[in-house]
């Protein structure tokens, strides 16, 4: 039972609970009309202490498509936090108005604090560089829907693997499924942190390799998960210039990829995926956005305990 629970860390959910959410999302995708009024009379509060248009709109669209309503704020300046109110007090107040809330906060652990004080389910919609569980759910549903499974594949994770929280969460989440091989593609400076390698990959005896260039491995991949490489992350300009093109996916590099490989990206992208491949059937990052909304619809329903 997921009713009344909070979602703070993607690992809070068991594989069985994930399946329940994904199965519901599948049905919502197939029969959206059946769900148009399931949350009628329910209110979602979006508590966004820092702007994140993409995530907020995804949550709000999800609730509207379920027939519910939305209240909230989209920056700390327009909330009572500007007057010095604590996260705990804000969430206790909001719990008097709304049935469920999604919180984005620049400080790590703020949604956890909220969940300890809240009578309504709290969904972590991103807390600094810490966790972003609904992105992980989005990634998993996208892979499950487009590849038909969450096991037996080779996934390449490319770009900033050091600071990218989406990548860390995705590795942890996928490490619970069988026969997945990870290829970690990044410059030396942005390699995956040792603790992820030691506590997840090595500990669970999962196959992985680390490479510097996408061209070396693109032919092996079933999934390519791109992330942004930011100039300021490099220690010197020379390395940035030497490596930056290796982390831009274009037509030329895609030529050597499998025909059924899928390209994903948590978005927003800057230049790491060339627009020239947007029309390639393997480019699935905008489909991923849509799966993000569907998985949030399923999650809201499960946490509220509503059924069609």
């Amino acid at each position, binding site marked *: 039972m997921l009713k009344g629970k909070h979602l703070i860390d993607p690992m809070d959910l068991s594989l069985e609970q994930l399946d329940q959410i994904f199965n519901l999302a599948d049905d919502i995708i197939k029969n959206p009309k059946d769900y148009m009024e399931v949350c009628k009379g329910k209110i979602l509060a979006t508590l966004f202490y820092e702007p994140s248009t993409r995530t907020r709109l995804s949550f709000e669209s999800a609730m509207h498509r379920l027939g519910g309503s939305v209240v909230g704020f989209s920056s700390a300046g327009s909330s009572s936090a500007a007057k010095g109110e*604590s996260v*705990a007090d804000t969430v206790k107040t909001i719990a008097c108005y709304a049935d469920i809330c999604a919180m984005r906060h620049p*400080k*790590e*652990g*703020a949604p*956890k*604090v909220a969940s300890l004080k809240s009578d309504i389910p709290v969904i972590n919609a991103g*807390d600094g560089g810490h966790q972003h569980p609904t992105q992980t759910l989005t990634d998993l549903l996208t892979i499950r829907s487009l590849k038909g499974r969450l096991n037996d594949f080779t996934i390449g994770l490319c770009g900033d693997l050091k600071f990218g929280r989406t990548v860390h969460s995705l590795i942890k989440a996928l490490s619970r499924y069988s026969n997945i091989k990870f290829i970690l593609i990044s410059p030396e400076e942005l390699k995956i942190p040792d603790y992820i390698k030691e506590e997840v990959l090595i500990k669970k005896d999962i196959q992985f390799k680390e490479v510097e260039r996408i061209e070396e491995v693109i032919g092996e991949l079933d999934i390519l998960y791109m992330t942004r490489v930011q100039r300021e992350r490099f220690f010197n300009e020379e390395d940035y210039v030497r490596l930056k093109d290796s982390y831009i996916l274009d037509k030329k590099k895609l030529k050597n990829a499998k025909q059924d490989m899928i390209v994903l990206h948590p978005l927003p992208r800057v230049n790491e995926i060339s627009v020239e491949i947007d029309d390639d059937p393997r480019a699935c990052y905008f489909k991923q956005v849509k799966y993000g909304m569907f998985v949030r619809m399923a999650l809201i329903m499960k946490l509220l305990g509503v059924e069609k």
Partner: protein
Amino acid sequence: MLKIDSVEKGIVIDHIKAGLGMEIYNYLNLDKLDCSVALIKNVKSKKLGKKDIIKVENVIDIDLKVLGFIDPNITINIIENDRIVDKIKLELPEEVINVVKCKNPRCITSIEQEIEQRFKLVDKDNGIYRCIYCDQAYENNK
């Protein structure tokens, strides 16, 4: 050497690493007790060279779990009728509240002082705790 009377009934917290006695006095809120409490510093010790000792008279009901977090080598003797009736073996507690502060400047506790500082034991063998809010590690190898 300074003489402190032996305790007839109470607790003797022994083998405290020299210098940590006052810290433990504070953690256990011994200043709030109404009975005799002795904090003896820098006592000669074969095992440690120097050590601190705390003696608490009459009171036995003190939550000592936190001591396992501060220094698991501390020994605790419960005294009744001038005799040691129990020796408590310390273990790392599962959770410590308001004992250490999270050092992650990005943690919510860095801006909201009212929040309890809570750390959970995640790795018993290496004494690693993590902040329950931001997962920042705290290695307890003092």
